[in-house]
Each structure stands twice: as structure tokens, then as C-alpha cells.
């Protein structure tokens, strides 16, 4: 369970975040959507303890943060990158765990490749693999799929969904892609800008995600409903 209470943020004179309260149940997948500058990335960084803030955040011990641009070390091979976080966290049996993790995301055979030799999708799979290998209780994702093309993006959404159902971590995803939020989440949190605050939380009722879900009328209806709410501040 992740609990955010009375979190706010000022950058100099500008109030970036008004008082924000949010509870995320264990094993829940939550997405945060909102226009640029609504402070959704800042909120995620406050939860991650990367940005200081008054207010209280409680979260499980073991977590991972997935960044927008994969955040791989360019001088390390795929193998070296998937072992990086285990090194930082002092995890044993790095090699065996790395091999399993790479196989799970279909990167076995690329152990000796360097990040610049991988496609955008493969980089993100590697980034996810090195986080999942920590067996985190929660994962924070900061627009992880915004750098890949539309087709890859949908495939990665499906893979991310499978990871979530398999490993049962709690997830908070920041995205500006509404369909992505609806596809992946149990609940979608809508934020408004200046100062950033939560205006709506939409329940997503789908029990199971399959690719054809995107073509269902109920799916489009939810996407349109959220888009409508976001358009209010344009």
C-alpha cells in the first residue's frame, strides 16, 4: 500500500502541487494523467523521495523507478545493465537472475550488445527487466513508453500488463496517453494544472486485458470521458 498525504510542492514562488492525498492499494495499478505542467512527474518524484516535500509518503521498502528514456548506462552491455540495480542494492546471484530476467523480456541472445544497438522497445524492455529483477513491491513509471512508436507502444503495454499480473507489484504510472492509462489501470487519477491537484479518480472496470479490448465501445467511452475532463483546462 502506498499512501500519499498532504503532499505539496513550491518551486520558488510557483506552487507546483497543491495539497495532494492519494492511496494506492497493494497490487493495484494506478495511472496519473494530466496536461503538461500539472505536476504529475513531480508527484511521482516526491513519492520516490527524489524531490523533497512537506507531507507524508508511506510505501513498501522494495521499489523501482522506471524512467522515460530507459536510463541505461551506454558503456555497459545488456548484461551489465540488467545487473546494475542488483549491484546498487547488493543482491546476490546476479548472473542467474539476470539471465532469467532477460529471457522473460526476450532479450536473451543480446547479452553482449550495447544499448545504442537496441531499438527503443528493446531498451525499455531492458529497463523494465532490470527493475523487475529486484522483485519490487511497487514500481513507479514516469512516461516509460513515450519514446517508442505507436505499434511498439501497444505491444509494450500488453507486456507490462503481463508483468504486472505475473509479479503482482503495485504500480503508479504517469502518462499523457489516455488509452494507455485506461488499458493498464485499475484506476485513473486525473490532475489539473497550476497548482497541480487531483480533480477526479476514474474506476476502470475491466477484469482482463487483451489487445482487442481497445476496440470495445466501453473502452472508447472511458477514453473519451477522461479526455473530456482533461480538455476543460485547455
Amino acid at each position: 500500500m502506498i499512501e500519499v498525504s498532504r503532499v505539496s510542492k513550491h518551486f520558488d514562488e510557483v506552487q507546483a502541487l497543491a495539497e495532494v492525498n492519494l492511496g494506492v492499494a497493494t497490487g493495484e495499478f494506478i495511472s496519473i494523467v494530466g496536461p503538461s505542467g500539472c505536476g504529475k512527474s513531480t508527484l511521482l518524484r516526491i513519492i520516490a523521495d527524489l524531490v523533497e516535500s512537506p507531507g507524508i509518503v508511506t510505501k513498501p521498502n522494495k521499489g523501482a523507478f522506471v524512467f522515460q528514456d530507459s536510463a541505461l548506462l551506454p558503456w555497459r552491455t545488456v548484461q551489465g545493465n540488467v545487473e546494475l540495480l542488483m549491484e546498487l542494492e547488493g543482491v546476490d546471484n546476479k548472473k542467474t537472475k539476470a539471465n532469467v530476467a532477460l529471457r522473460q523480456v526476450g532479450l536473451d541472445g543480446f547479452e553482449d550488445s550495447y544499448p545504442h544497438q537496441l531499438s527503443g522497445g528493446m531498451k525499455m524492455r531492458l529497463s523494465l527487466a532490470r527493475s523487475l529483477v529486484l522483485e519490487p513491491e511497487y514500481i513507479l513509471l514516469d512516461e516509460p513508453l513515450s519514446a517508442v512508436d505507436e505499434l511498439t507502444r501497444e505491444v509494450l503495454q500488453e507486456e507490462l500488463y503481463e508483468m504486472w499480473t505475473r509479479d503482482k507489484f503495485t504500480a503508479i504510472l504517469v502518462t499523457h496517453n489516455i488509452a494507455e492509462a485506461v488499458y493498464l489501470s485499475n484506476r485513473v487519477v486525473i490532475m489539473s494544472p497550476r497548482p497541480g491537484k487531483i480533480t477526479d479518480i476514474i474506476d476502470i472496470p475491466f477484469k482482463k486485458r487483451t489487445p482487442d479490448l481497445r476496440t470495445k465501445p466501453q473502452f472508447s467511452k472511458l477514453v473519451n470521458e477522461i479526455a473530456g475532463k482533461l480538455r476543460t483546462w485547455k
Partner: protein
Amino acid sequence: MEVKKIIPPVLILVLFLGSWHVGAVIYNMAFLLPTPYAVLQTFIQDFNIIMIGLAQTFQAAFTGYIIAIAIGIAVATIMSLSKILERSLYPYAILLQTVPVVAVAPLIVLWFGFEIKSIIIISVIIALFPIINNTLLGLKSTSKTLVELFDYHDTKKLTTFIKLRFPAAIPNIIAGLKISAGLSVIGAIVGEFIIGSGSEQGGLGVQIIYAQANLETSLVMALILTATMLGFAFFITVSTLGWYLLHKWHESEQ
């Protein structure tokens, strides 16, 4: 390497040597402008003594270069650790670059004597700034996202430095080392000029002064050529090291 890549620079060399030769023949004053062939002959004839000079200059330049690398990377690392230290030290690093070393060199010789120690110090002073500057630039331009990743995992400062900041700075460090390779040789030659004196047994700089005094122009040129090759050899060594470290992952070496 492909033959096609070698042709253009070789063509320039042939063109250069050709016009030099023609110029020297037309000018017809061998003691002022000897032909390339005459320079080559002098080089062969005085090979032993030139090699003695080369060995001395190499020793001074190489020692100076290594010391400059050690001090340069250390100082840049210290500066990268804190804004205050950077602000206090950087102006003096710039002074190191702007001080006319040729003018300071006599002072250094006064302080440290007419020996190789002074030559090494002058070489260090000349070679130091590009290493400090480039290393500092590299250490300060670590990707913000990667720093956040390491911070998120509560990584110790030292670990972050070893696993992230330093390797990320290697392309810049190599760039600095490449500039300083030639500078360290220049520094050694300047130092030898100041120490000068009449011995024809000294380093390349000493021998140049001696040959100049005796109007042995072809020997001066043969010595210049040797000093140039020495700087070039330093450069090639560092470039090879850079290629070895970077070609697998960095754009600059692909």
C-alpha cells in the same frame, strides 16, 4: 584501413615535400632552406645524437604528461564535488592557461635549477589546463536521469562516482588528453630552450638552440621533425587508448 582513406593525406604530404624541394632548389641557399632530402641525410648522419636528445625530451615530456594527467583529473574531481571548491579553484586553473609560460619558464629554472625537474614542471604547467577543463566538463554533464536512478537506490556518493560520473566523463577526459599530448612535448621543448646552454648533448630543445647558433639549418629541421613525431606518437597512443575504451559504445569513436 582502406587504401582509399590513406590516399588524400599521402597526396598532401607528397605535394608539400615536392613544393618544398622545388622551392629550395630555386632559392638555392642550402644553409637557410635545405631540401627535404638534405634534412633526411642530416637525420641519418646525426641519428645517434638526435636519439640521445629524443630520449631526454621524451623522458621530460612523458613524465610531465603523466603528472599533468594525475593532477588534472584529481583537481577536476575535487572541483566537481562541490560548487564552492569549483568557484574557488577554477579562476586559478584559467590563469594556468593564460599565464605566458615562456615568460614564467626562466623563473622556474631559477627556482628548480638547470635540470630535468624544471623541464618537467614547465611541461606540466602547459599540459594541465585542457585536462582539468575537459574532465570537469565531463564530470558535470552526467545525465540527470541517471543521477536520479542512482539517487533513487540511495547509492553512496563514491559508488555513484565510480559507476556513473567517472565512466560518463571518459569521452571528455580522452578529448583533454589528446590536446595535452602535443602540449606536453611543447612544454618540454620550451623548458629545454630556457635551460639551453651550449651542450650539443642535451634534449631536442637544447640541440635546436645549439644547431641554430651554428647555422646548421638542416639539423634544426631534423630536430623539429623528431620533436613533431614525438608529440604525434603521444597523440596516437592516447587516441588508440580512447578508441579501445570508447568504440563499443560512444558515438565519437564509431
